[in-house]
């Protein structure tokens, strides 16, 4: 349950060995490579030419983008949420590298995709032409080819029937042009025009302006029926071309897994190539800076002796203000909460990992937002199945485990509020069963529910301030812990007691008295300490006073009230889930018509679909808003994210995960 301790590593070797060091280091997989600080005297940064690797990566990415369309997997949806590397053994990777001809496959896939797109476009055009003339296929009319007549030009036109009636109007076409309606079907008319060659352009232009569309002329004059048949044949041909290209791409899509493996391998190569550019050289020696987990120090020394001959390794503790990459290690129980911390941003190396401290709040908030015993059971069952299904993927496993914990609190809150698929079981089995019992029904007493939501908010905000104290204490700033946290823990509860006394005049007198004293001591402490960094006495006092409001300093009364009221969403979301569930039950009940068995089945089917729909939507809202309460209201009190993730060269890839042969056999 902590941020892993790391050591700063300096690897020094003769200049001649430099090009091979990153690759050998990637095989060791323990060192996060960092740039050698520019301030180091007499060092020249090495340059790395990554163009060839980047070109290969571009080809692979393009290939994969096209193949993805033809080889979809369920994981595509999940991998949008959480990085899910694909697994392979070293042997599988080697086979993939051997079997995939990157350039050849890229060329082939791109050609097929272009062929498919061209055939699709041509089929679209043929379809449009067919839609225009197909209705007239019964008419015994010839479709003249372009230039079929020597002195004149004959053209067929399509127009709305209403427009076609205008063909008798004078001035529609130039004098001497013959125009005639050949037939009309379904509101569209087929019209023929014959004009002398010198008049043809003028006639065509006027007819177009009047809303007539010319039919594309075939290469040779044919009967209209044959013309339609020819377009149909053309359309069939284009569709066949599309299908053929699609089938070939689908066949190549079977290589997707191998292509992804090769892509992951080349991404690793790019990182390795870039590592060379982070190294610096003196005249004869080259130095590489990095970080290694303290627990891996021994393994690094062993690996260096074995795999990096000629390379000296020097390890030291990171300096105080240094930007150190962060790696978190939590116990199995708290690991799911690490998912939230990683989603928000990693803590600084010298701070602390809040995973364990936020988990209870998050799952409790989620339970309040969803709060239904049946939904809780369903969520636990589903999350458990998914944890087992994705146990090999740490990101997904942690996410589903978190949902499992949330399912438990959802069940508990559901039981306490008497919510079992809203009021479904209460209505069906009666009020006197277990389903009719409730410690508190928030629909009956929403103000009590609001009070509980706000109490949870108060507790969580106080917990956040305590975390601030803990953070300062850990860094040896004991006075800071008291000034920036302790005084707020006096002032804020004091204010809460005073507000309680104001709204409940019947409260015992000690509530108001205790509130006054706590608020007074806390406020005095804050006024005297929050401006401690100011130089003048006036500055110290002014900053101290303003800090009570919240513009400067570590917290503020206004922020505290705002943060606490924000927790009212717990009640709003909980009520929304229940009310939508009740609406589902009412509609399901209306569908239960008189035919006993069928009516009951329709009722059950609708209730299941409706409640699943409500569960999915409400769970999404519960997750987002619980996360928001943690990220904004809770983290706002003490947490500063922004650290870089610890990513050892050669060991981490968001795309592939290399398994040992034994692990692969077991899975």
């Amino acid at each position, binding site marked *: 349950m902590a941020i892993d301790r790391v050591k700063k590593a300096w690897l020094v070797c003769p200049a001649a060995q430099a090009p091979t060091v990153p690759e050998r280091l990637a095989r060791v997989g323990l060192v996060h490579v960092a740039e050698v600080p520019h301030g180091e005297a007499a060092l020249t940064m090495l340059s790395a030419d990554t163009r060839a690797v980047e070109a290969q990566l571009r080809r692979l990415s393009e290939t994969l983008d096209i193949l993805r369309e033809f080889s979809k997997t369920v994981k595509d949806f999940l991998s949008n949420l959480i990085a899910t590397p694909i697994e392979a053994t070293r042997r599988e990777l080697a086979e993939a590298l051997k079997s995939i001809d990157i350039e050849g496959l890229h060329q082939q896939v791109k050609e097929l995709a272009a062929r498919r797109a061209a055939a699709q476009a041509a089929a679209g055009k043929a379809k449009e032409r067919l839609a225009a003339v197909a209705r007239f296929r019964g008419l015994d009319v010839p479709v003249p080819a372009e230039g079929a007549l020597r002195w004149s030009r004959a053209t067929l036109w399509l127009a709305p029937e209403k427009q076609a009636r205008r063909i008798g109007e004078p001035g529609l076409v130039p004098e001497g042009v013959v125009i005639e309606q050949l037939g009309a079907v379904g509101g569209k008319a087929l019209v023929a025009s014959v004009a002398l060659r010198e008049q043809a352009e003028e006639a065509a232009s006027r007819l177009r302006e009047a809303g007539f569309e010319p039919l594309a002329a075939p290469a040779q004059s044919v009967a209209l029926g044959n013309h339609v048949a020819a377009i149909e044949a053309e359309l069939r041909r284009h569709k066949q071309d599309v299908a053929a290209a699609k089938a070939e791409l689908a066949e190549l899509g079977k290589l997707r897994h191998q292509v992804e493996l090769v892509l992951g391998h080349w991404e690793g190569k790019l990182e390795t190539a870039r590592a060379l550019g982070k190294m610096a050289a003196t005249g004869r020696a080259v130095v590489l800076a990095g970080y290694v987990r303290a627990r891996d120090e021994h393994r690094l020394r062993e690996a260096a002796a074995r795999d990096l001959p000629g390379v000296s390794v020097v390890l030291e503790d990171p300096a105080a203000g240094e930007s150190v990459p962060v790696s978190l290690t939590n116990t199995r129980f708290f690991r799911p909460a690490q998912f939230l911390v990683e989603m928000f*941003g990693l803590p600084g190396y010298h701070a602390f990992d809040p995973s364990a401290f936020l988990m209870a709040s998050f799952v409790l908030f989620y339970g309040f937002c969803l709060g239904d015993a049946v939904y809780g059971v369903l969520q636990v069952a589903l999350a458990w199945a998914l944890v087992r299904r994705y146990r090999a993927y740490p990101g997904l496993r942690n996410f589903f485990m978190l949902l499992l914990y949330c399912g438990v609190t959802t069940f508990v809150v559901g039981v306490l509020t008497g919510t079992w698929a809203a009021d479904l079981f209460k209505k069906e089995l009666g009020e006197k069963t277990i389903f009719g019992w409730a410690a508190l029904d928030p629909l009956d007493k*929403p103000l009590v529910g609001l009070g509980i939501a706000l109490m949870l908010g108060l507790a969580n905000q106080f917990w956040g301030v305590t975390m601030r104290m803990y953070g300062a204490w850990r860094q040896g700033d004991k006075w800071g812990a008291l000034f920036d946290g302790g005084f707020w823990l006096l002032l804020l509860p004091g204010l809460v007691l005073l507000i309680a006394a104001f709204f409940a005049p019947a409260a015992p007198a000690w509530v108001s008295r205790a509130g006054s004293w706590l608020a007074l001591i806390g406020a005095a402490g804050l006024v005297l300490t929050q401006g401690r960094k100011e130089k003048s006495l006036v500055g110290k006092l002014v900053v101290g006073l303003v800090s009570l409001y919240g513009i400067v300093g570590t917290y503020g009364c206004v922020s505290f009230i705002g943060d606490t009221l924000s927790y*009212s969403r717990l009640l709003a979301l909980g009520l929304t889930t229940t009310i939508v569930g009740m609406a589902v039950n009412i509609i399901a009940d209306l569908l239960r018509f008189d035919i006993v068995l069928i009516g009951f089945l329709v009722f059950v089917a609708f209730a299941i679909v409706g409640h699943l729909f409500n569960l999915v939507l409400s769970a999404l809202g519960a997750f987002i808003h619980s996360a928001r309460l943690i990220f904004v209201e809770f983290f*706002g009190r003490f947490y500063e994210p922004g650290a870089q993730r610890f990513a050892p060269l050669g060991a981490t890839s968001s795309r592939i995960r290399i398994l040992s042969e034994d692990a692969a056999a077991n899975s």
Partner: protein
Amino acid sequence: MEDFVTQYFLKTGAGWTVIGAMCAVMFGGVGSARGIRIAGGQAAGVLSEKPELFGKLLVLMALPGTQGFYSFIIAIFMAAQTGLLSGALKVTPLMGVALMAVGICAGIVQYRSAVYQGEASAAAISMTARRPEESGRSILIPALVETYAVVALLASILFIMWITAMKVGG
């Protein structure tokens, strides 16, 4: 119709209260929907280039949804304090009109703050797209806008309590 008006608008203030509560819900809901649309549009643009940021942008997209909940709380509070929920109605026409004013004013604040928060969220989403490691800090920018939605919620709750308590005296 005359009976309805007499019953809900002249003899009691139930009608005015319902209008006020629903105005709060309407303005807050529409504002939240618009705010989320603004933030969501920006996020969709970013995600088309950087799908791996989905987790970080999810909360930013949802931030302007808060005003919808605050409005809902105001409506529930009005209904609970006036006895609309329990059926024991205790609201005079004058109190109803006052509550309606509270609902409309609070609703307008919720509406505008949700839209502004959507715009601030869109800016924060751009910041996260450029510097993903700053996603935590970027959440604070739109969260500041929400302060005034909270102030409106708080003022509404206080006024609802004062207005409904006034009945005892007069």
